[in-house]
């Protein structure tokens, strides 16, 4: 997606969000019975202002010459190959993988507990995404979890969810 289309799409989403917020907000009452501002005042005013500003931004983006968007740095991309020799396509894949692994780790929390789920996430990212050696990844994951456990669970006494297996 070109930077210009991405900017227009983002502002388009905000037009919709602003309009929907104003619409729902109007249901809360713009003013109270005694004429003072009601629960819907802020949502309506902000929703309308947001939609208007977003429309102005869409128009401004479309009127700007295409080069200006690239100059403004919207959606900037570095050269296709990074210092580790990864192409933009590979990096996009890595990004999707990290988001997917993160989502999976959070789904795992009720089973393994928060610390173990996130420890597995660290190891999975280091080995699958970053292609680090499994032993090094396990070592980093174990040290990180140990430090976090001591600081948060032991010293600060944060009650961590331990999940079904109930370890830490």
């Amino acid at each position, binding site marked *: 997606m070109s930077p210009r289309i991405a900017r227009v799409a983002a502002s388009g989403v905000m037009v919709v969000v602003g309009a929907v917020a104003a619409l729902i907000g109007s249901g809360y009452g713009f003013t109270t019975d005694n004429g*003072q501002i009601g629960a819907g005042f802020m*949502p309506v005013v902000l929703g309308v202002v947001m939609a208007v500003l977003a429309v102005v931004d869409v128009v401004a983006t479309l009127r700007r010459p295409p080069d200006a968007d690239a100059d403004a740095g919207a959606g900037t991309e570095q050269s296709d190959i990074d210092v580790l020799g990864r192409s933009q396509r590979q990096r996009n894949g890595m990004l999707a993988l990290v988001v997917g692994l993160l989502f999976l780790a959070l789904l795992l929390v009720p089973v393994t507990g928060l610390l173990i789920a996130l420890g597995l996430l660290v190891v999975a*990212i280091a080995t699958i995404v970053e292609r680090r050696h499994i032993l090094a990844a396990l070592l980093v994951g174990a040290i990180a979890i140990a430090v976090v456990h001591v600081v948060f669970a032991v010293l600060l006494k944060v009650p961590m969810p331990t999940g079904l297996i109930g370890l830490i």
Partner: protein
Amino acid sequence: MIENILLGFQTALTLENVLWCFVGVLLGTVIGLLPGLGSTTGVAVLLPVTFTLEPVTALIMLAGIYYGAQYGGTITSVLISTPGEAASVVTTLDGYQMAKRGRAGAALAISAIGSFIAAIISLALLMALAPPLADLALEFGPVEMLAIMILALVVVITFQGKDMIRGALMAVAGLLVATVGIAQGTSEARFTFGNVNLLSGIPFVEVMIGLFALGEVLHQIRMGAAAPIRARFQDMLITRKDVKDSMPAILRGSGIGFLLGILPGAGSTLASFMAYGVERKVSRNRDNFGRGAIEGVASPESANNAAANANFVPTLALGIPGGATTAVLLGAFTIFGLQPGPLLFDTQPALVWGLLVSFFIGNVLLLVLNLPLAPVFAQMLRIPYGYLYPIILLTSLIGAYSVSNNMFSVWLVFVFGLIGYLMKEVDLPMAPFVLGLVLGPLLEKALVQTSAIGKGNLGVMFESPIAVGVIALAIAAIVVPRVLAALRGARRDARV
């Protein structure tokens, strides 16, 4: 006055008080380093530890945690673009850019120096002006606070220069997100869709962790690995020129921070944003702002420290907390059987002046502790990013969980992380969004109260000379730079 200062030094400089002050700033720094844990959580968590201490010693230690945590938050803002608390958000703009250019050590050092100078200035001002300023702060009702918040939003929007529409759009988006939860005044639930977790609103810390920590990590993955930062040790050190260049920014930041810090509720966040906005307009190096200008670190850091100290004016003299952390400290006062208010200066002079002087001692300790450690902290950037970012994800998510002990917070970080990533991709500014989110509840509260004062008529705002003056400043902040630019352009055309 001199007797008060001497009494303060006499109280604060006992071995026991200096030791606990040191413990406070050290623990505060460590707490500030942990994502999700800021000064408020730090003071609240460690409050029970102080129950066995003398009240003055306990308060000195808790105050040490307060400004220690602020500095800890600065370290993560500079090194990994993850602010520990809202007051450090602005520091990420230039601090992180400095770190990327191998100057993290200098950014951290100028932050410590700026905070130290701000502490000296604000201490001198506090001692001279605390009682009259307390009277002045009383003049600031909801109407005046509403005007101040509008000014703050305008200043932040003007950060964006030519892209002011996008700045305004994000500020409004932040304010809109802040409307989620129970409405001010009417207690009606808004945009909660039956979810009880949303009744108290979208929690700010989780949003911040998502936008800055997770959003930045995802952005970096897509941008690809950059060449590792291999700065020489001497590049990590701050130079005399850095200090000289930053001095005007530190002095201006301290003044702005102090003035905003004395207003109840305004706090350090507003001060750091305002100071950065002003510096971006007046600094000789303004063209480099956002690209690693050292003044862009010095100014907000001085401002948030000065504001943190000045926050104690309404807290001590009026019994009104200046911000969330001083609200917890106010609770500590009552636990120790002390009643903050106008009489406190007369009934407990040793405690009040001892506490105020301890800010100075605490900042000396922070400087001594952190100036040599700044290049050491900066070495963290040498860790390969492939290992660093999974650890950032781990600590950020655990930090978010620890704020409310609720998995909802962790999911919020995930969602706002994706939003933060998309915002970076389409170049939407985060600072106005964050300020909108922080100020949203305060702004609505002031708006509801102003509406009540005017019996539904918000025009009552223009009956307050202070509010009119502040609104005039806000208009000037938008109009004056445009008029000046137009005049400069016309002069240039005339020359051609």
